[in-house]
């Protein structure tokens, strides 16, 4: 990019280096033939990918992560989308407070939420770890469901729905044929963001884990602490590849920057 702002450009280059270069080093070391995380890598081989894909704790926790992420996303949308409709369309007293309540899990530090659920639900009330993990992830995702679908609802002209009603559609039919299609991109964005947020989550998953309920990021952290070999680099590279695919899908469907630029508005 040619620019007439040399100082700004220098800072920007430094920013990109800090953001991107460590990730490139992960990918490079994943292909090493050597036994340690050494740079430059010793030789070229795919053996660490093979090891990562057959290492039982990784495979098992990948399944747990995927299960929790899918279910928590569905649950958050199932209870969050109706709430969004009520907030934006219903005649509610204290609408602002209700919305703030739904966004509140975003404000409290995740480790604190994790600690609260661990102390109260697992230790005091003896819940199993798995349902609590699901509850925690769903609570964490509710703000995304409400904010992202809310944004597309706010952009919709309420007259459309009134017109449908005026033409004789029942509330349900008007919702199904008019409102839902308008909401669809918002719901898709919220689902994508939710899935990724849940899948990558560490603080909640860390505090709510048990020997049988452990998510992939937590298992990887654990592994890094015990052994210093390129298997985590290989696993990370695989995650990176899948994430690129997700980004491309997001770009083709709703628009990558629209989805991910919309989180912190």
């Amino acid at each position, binding site marked *: 990019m040619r620019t007439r702002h040399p*100082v700004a450009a220098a800072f920007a280059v430094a920013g990109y280096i800090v*953001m991107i270069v*460590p990730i490139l080093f992960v990918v490079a070391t994943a292909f090493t033939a050597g036994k340690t995380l050494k740079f430059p890598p010793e030789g070229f081989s795919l053996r660490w990918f093979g090891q990562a894909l057959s290492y039982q704790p990784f495979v098992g926790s990948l399944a747990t992560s995927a299960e929790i992420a899918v279910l928590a996303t569905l649950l958050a949308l199932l209870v969050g989308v109706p709430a969004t409709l009520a*907030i934006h369309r219903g005649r509610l007293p204290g609408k602002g407070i209700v919305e703030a309540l739904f966004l509140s899990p975003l404000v409290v530090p995740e480790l*604190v939420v994790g600690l*609260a659920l661990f102390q109260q639900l697992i230790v005091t009330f003896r819940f199993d770890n798995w349902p609590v993990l699901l509850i925690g992830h769903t609570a964490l995702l*509710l703000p995304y469901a409400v904010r992202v679908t809310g944004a597309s609802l706010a952009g919709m002209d309420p007259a459309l729905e009134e017109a449908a009603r005026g033409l004789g559609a029942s509330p349900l039919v008007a919702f199904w044929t008019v409102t839902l299609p308008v909401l669809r991109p918002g719901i898709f964005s919220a689902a994508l963001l939710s899935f990724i947020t849940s899948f990558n989550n560490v603080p909640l998953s860390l505090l709510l884990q048990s020997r049988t309920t452990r998510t992939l990021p937590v298992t990887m952290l654990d592994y890094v602490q015990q052994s210093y070999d390129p298997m985590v*680099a290989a696993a990370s590279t695989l995650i990176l590849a899948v994430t690129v695919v997700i980004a491309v899908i997001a770009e083709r469907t709703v628009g990558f920057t629209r989805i*991910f630029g919309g989180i912190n*508005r």
Partner: protein
Amino acid sequence: MHSRIAPLLLLAPGLGFLLVGFLVPSVAMLFSPPGTSTGEVFVRLGQMLTDPYDLQIIGRTLMFGLVVTVICVVLGFPVAYLLARTSSRWSGLLLALAIFPLLLSNVVRTFGWLVVLGSNGAIGQLLVGLGLVDQAPQLLYTPLAVVLGLTQLFLPLSIITCYSAVSQVDAGLDDAARGLGASRTRTFWDVVLPLSLPGIIVAATLVFAGSVTAYTTPYLLGGSSNRMLSTQLFAYSSVTVDWASASATAIIMTVLVFAVSALSSLAGRKGATA
């Protein structure tokens, strides 16, 4: 009738969920951790705010948060500014590259620094290879490592927040200032920067709140000599199982985040009226 009850029915499942899965446990954590009384939690809280060891951890957490926030704004704003104000066929790709890391697991991003900073890592090997040092310097488990890791983590957040702020400043104002004879630098400092200030404050708040509560980075890159509130909270709840200390740490973290958000919304309101 239907317009009165329908919204409540739509809200009920979500509110119920929030109550059971978030609000009640959070409040209960403060007042009755398992087998511990409210009194014990607040006694421990008082101790933490006077004990030198605990104060050092709080101070370090604040310090890392502040340093990372400054770096993320100083590096992030220029990226946002250039992305919003220059158009080339690369800007789409560069914007995507700045946002993409938000999709990528913190574990993966933080792990990269082990490869770069580790004793067999890129920087160490480079310095040895160039003959500048005999042995790779200890870069991991230092404050520098934690700051670098947190900067990488939160820079994208800073960039997209600043980007939306700069995009909302009418580019016509830049042209007007230039047309009236202001230099590029002057236009930047006197027009673009002040008008983007509310966005910068939001970016700084998000980065600060994120850095003082992040766990993965201080855990992997800080080691035991760079404990932060987050790593300490985990140790209290899962290693020593000291519920009073864990709850007290949680209170400190939460108050810190809320205080900063309140301060920033105050500053934002002042900025908007000034």
